[in-house]
């Protein structure tokens, strides 16, 4: 009872802080908005890397794919996409507020489903790979996607696409996107929390611990792997669609398929917080984002060195992450038992 009340208090506290933050820390709203993007990144990465043991370095692919799919849908509803992206100012662009909102919602839905379709199609290729080969293979997918989109004139190639601007006051727009990312992150957190409590969660944990054994026990491993990747892609597609609209301008290498800025940090955040745990990715994302913003502010010019150092220290000295370390230190707090059940020890069959 007391644990569930404590959990409720924790969730309530986070909810209140999150609702109040954009109004109280008005000048930090863009950092707070990106914080939720980071949380979403870490949670969706952990489903693959932490819970299923498939360290994807290419999850950013679905973020970028969602962003472009949504942009094409939003523009395509009212204009010819090729003409729109041909040259800035070539056609006069004017979205009414209704067109904007309908386009955003529709674009986000298609982006989520499109990312799932891409995940299913790609799973036939990448899940033939295991361990480090899977990591490099997925990294290749993300890098190749960035280069291919960068050469694709229809979507503006390397010069990207300028998306319609939020209709209304800029502050309202900023809050709108803050809450959009907040809701997306919260939904993904509760979705995966539920998922890890089902048979599905057990199955992907079994794949992580020993995939060959799981196969020998008749578990349909390919099905579980494809679904997990698709779920990751679903939330990343939503996130990408929203981020494109938040950023107004999208472009293949630095925004959509941004491996260095977003793709690699997905892994770092999950490792830092503790992969394979519920709260680890969330804590890791917050910590990483705070460190990143601080280094940008105080060590400008050295920011990537500082972040590189953080990656090295995490990977070499602190692999289990914060939650992993806490679980080792206070296992009973996490419902992990290390002592055998002596009271019922006599039930042991002779």
């Amino acid at each position, binding site marked *: 009872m007391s644990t569930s009340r404590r959990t409720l208090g924790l969730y309530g506290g986070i909810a209140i802080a999150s609702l109040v933050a954009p109004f109280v820390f008005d000048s930090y709203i863009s950092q707070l908005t990106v914080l939720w993007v980071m949380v979403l990144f870490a949670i969706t990465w952990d489903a693959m890397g932490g819970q299923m043991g498939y360290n994807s370095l290419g999850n950013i692919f679905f973020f970028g794919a969602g962003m472009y799919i949504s942009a094409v849908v939003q523009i395509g509803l009212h204009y010819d996409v090729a003409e729109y992206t041909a040259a800035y100012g070539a056609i006069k662009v004017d979205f009414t507020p209704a067109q904007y909102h309908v386009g955003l919602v529709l674009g986000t839905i298609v982006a989520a489903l499109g990312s799932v379709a891409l995940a299913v199609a790609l799973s036939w290729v990448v899940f033939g790979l295991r361990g480090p080969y899977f990591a490099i293979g997925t990294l290749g997918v993300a890098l190749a996607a960035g280069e291919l989109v960068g050469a694709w004139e229809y979507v503006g190639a390397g010069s990207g696409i300028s998306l319609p601007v939020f209709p209304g006051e800029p502050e309202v727009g900023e809050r709108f996107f803050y809450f959009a990312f907040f809701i997306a992150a919260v939904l993904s957190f509760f979705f995966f929390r539920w998922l890890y409590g*089902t*048979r599905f969660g057990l199955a992907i944990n079994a794949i992580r*611990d020993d995939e060959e*054994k799981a196969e*020998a026990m008749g578990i349909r491993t390919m099905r579980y792997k494809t679904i997990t990747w698709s779920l990751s892609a679903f939330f990343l597609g939503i996130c990408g669609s929203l981020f494109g609209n938040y950023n107004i301008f999208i472009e293949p290498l630095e925004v959509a398929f941004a491996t260095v800025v977003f793709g690699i940090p997905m892994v770092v955040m999950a490792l830092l917080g503790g992969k394979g745990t519920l709260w680890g990715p969330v804590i890791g994302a917050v910590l990483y984002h705070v460190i990143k913003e601080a280094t940008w502010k105080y060590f400008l010019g050295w920011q990537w060195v500082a972040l590189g150092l953080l990656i090295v220290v995490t990977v070499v000295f602190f692999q289990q992450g914060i939650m992993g370390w806490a679980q080792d230190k206070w296992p009973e707090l996490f419902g992990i038992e290390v002592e*055998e059940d002596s009271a019922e020890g006599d*039930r042991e*069959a002779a």
Partner: protein
Amino acid sequence: MAAMIEVRNVSKAFGGVQANRSISLDVAKGKITGLIGPNGSGKTTLFNSIVGYHPIDEGSIKFEGKEISKLRVPQIARLGMLRTFQQTRIYGKMNCIKNMLISVPHRSMGLIEIFGDHSAQELEKAEHLLEFVGLYAKRKLQAGDLSFGQQKLLEFAMALMNQPQILLLDEPTAGINPTLINGLIDRLKRANTEFGITLFVIEHNMRVIMNLAENIYCLAHSELLAEGSPETIQKDKRVIDAYLGAH
């Protein structure tokens, strides 16, 4: 007696090494069959061929009359044929109960069921089987923290949880404390009689296999050397020579 597994003229080579040469044998339904032979005689290769771990070069393998030599491991497992591993494989980061709960049969598990939770009967069965192998008190411990022998017992319990028709056990007593071996023999026999599971057992411990199996096959130099009851096998001069190194 009807044969549950029929192996006919199965050959398997790894590069230039002929691991199994034209082996034929039957595993009788409802019985315990043994497979013995010196190290390197091809016992584990034969097990791997039967469960679909690798394709065979020649021959046929039938399970309940159905040709399975072209099927892969998970498909064969879902038909009801399971194997345990010589090196013991469990899910180390999960506790024993979870190891058991994910070992339920996956034959008929649909898309909806995989997103459901385990049933009360499944939990009860998991606890019952852990008690059966003597791990009930350790049910909430991480499987990876158990000793080798305990992991072996857990793997056996997981196999029973899967309700197979036949279980292929690769050296079930290797690494188990000698004083616990009698208990394990007893449990293997009970799995056979009470749960009706056919057993096909590789074993190096002669005392164990003579005590356990009703019919024994002996491999040597990749070929089938002898077949018979424990008494006949024990007296067979070829078997004795194979073990003592005479040719």
